[in-house]
């Protein structure tokens, strides 16, 4: 019997070390492997972008940034929306306004991208994927505006469950390091978030999926994460920012003051909203 206690301690220690190693050196290392891509619109390598919207200000800022990107006149900074074969917009349940604004953005950005392709003579039927597809999906609210803090862990779990399913909604039987078959949708390659509670939960859920390498999302380099701190945050990070700072692949702020204050991997590229 005397051997059981030391054995348990050793096993626990090894497990903890393993978890730490996997988190620190495999999952949260921004230099971890990315999938190989041959061109932006290779039908054999479909791309999937996930954008998480929040209510009110967060949605406004996200769409303001993206609108500025797709309408940018400088070609080096211009985002071609159709480079992403599939776009998933995540909104909170009941937030019809955000859903409508996502749709409105798609109806502006995708035809704009198509039209520019035609004018530039870029479209080659065999190797181009066209305007791509998008969907607007809902998850339960992480926290109602006046919900007491006591019950919010419970509703956060419900949200997490929905995020877990959502992140696996599209997956493919795949060869190592590649997407699925031509035109097939795969798990998100990139998750773009900017602050609402739902977004924070989405990022942590994606890390959980990568931790267990569910459907190979970790080995295949899926679910990289980009966080943009609100333009309203001049000197200090928001709560979401503090929670996500060390776990996302890229962390952008919009004021030099907050970059100086926080330091580390924080990047400042100027104002991103318009």
């Amino acid at each position: 019997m005397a051997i059981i206690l030391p054995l348990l301690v050793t096993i626990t220690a090894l497990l903890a070390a393993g978890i730490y190693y996997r988190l620190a050196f495999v999952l949260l290392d921004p230099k971890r492997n990315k999938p190989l891509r041959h061109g932006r619109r290779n039908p054999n390598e479909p791309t999937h972008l996930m954008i998480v919207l929040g209510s009110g200000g967060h949605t406004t800022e996200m769409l303001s940034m993206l609108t500025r990107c797709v309408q940018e006149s400088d070609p080096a900074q211009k985002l071609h929306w159709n480079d992403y074969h599939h776009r998933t917009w995540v909104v909170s349940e009941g937030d019809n306004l955000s859903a409508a604004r996502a749709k409105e953005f798609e109806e502006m950005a995708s035809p704009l991208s198509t039209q520019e392709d035609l004018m530039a003579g870029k479209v080659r039927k065999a190797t181009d994927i066209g305007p791509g597809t998008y969907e607007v999906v809902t998850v339960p609210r992480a926290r109602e505006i006046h919900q007491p803090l006591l019950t919010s862990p419970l509703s956060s779990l419900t949200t997490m469950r929905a995020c877990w399913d959502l992140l696996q909604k599209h997956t493919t039987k795949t060869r190592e390091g590649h997407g699925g078959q031509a035109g097939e949708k795969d798990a998100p390659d990139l998750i773009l978030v900017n602050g609402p509670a739902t977004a924070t939960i989405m990022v942590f859920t994606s890390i959980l999926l990568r931790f267990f390498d569910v459907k190979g999302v970790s080995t295949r380099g899926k679910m990289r994460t980009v966080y943009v701190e609100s333009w309203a945050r001049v000197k200090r990070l928001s709560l979401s920012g503090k929670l996500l700072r060390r776990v996302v692949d890229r962390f952008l702020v919009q004021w030099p003051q907050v970059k100086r204050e926080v330091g580390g991997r924080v990047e400042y590229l100027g104002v991103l909203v318009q």
Partner: protein
Amino acid sequence: MAQTQQQQKLCFVSVGATAEFPALINTALSADFLSALQSQGYTELLVQYGEDGKDAFDGLMKQAQSGVESSGLKVSGFALDKAGLGRYMRRAKGGSKTMLPGVVVCHAGSGTILDALRTAVPTIVVPNSALLDNHQAELAEALSEQQYVIHGKLDNLGHALQEAEKLRQRQKEWPPVNAGMQRQGKGLKGILDEEMGFLD
């Protein structure tokens, strides 16, 4: 006699959709501010008072009635506009046959400030000090340091109106034109490209 018709000059006050900010409405309807508006040649004061703000606004209007009458201003209010506030801000910007250039006075919500900056109308931003986490005041301060807006305080809103006339002369462009370090910037698109591993 059509050409002698007086041009209008609008002061548009916005408190945001949700956060209640009765102190700003209170100040906007105070005798001091009304006479400051009058002396700057304003003819109209329009207040967006937010959801559930109607009762408070009507009450304050009753109190301010004598001041409003003596100022000769046309004062009115509305709760919210689902189509956004851009329309009102463009009216306040003026510069047409019927509208002289006016001013926007607003709470420090980022959405409202961005609307005003894009419209390029002189803007007085008044942070709500009753909010717990007052990062809004930092935003107003930082923007006024760079002379994009005027950082207004409830006790000197009349003075801020004069400042607004000066700001009008050197209204800055929004979003900031690529300059300095932002010129070489890769922007959000560059970051997304790097993360996707696009090589071209």
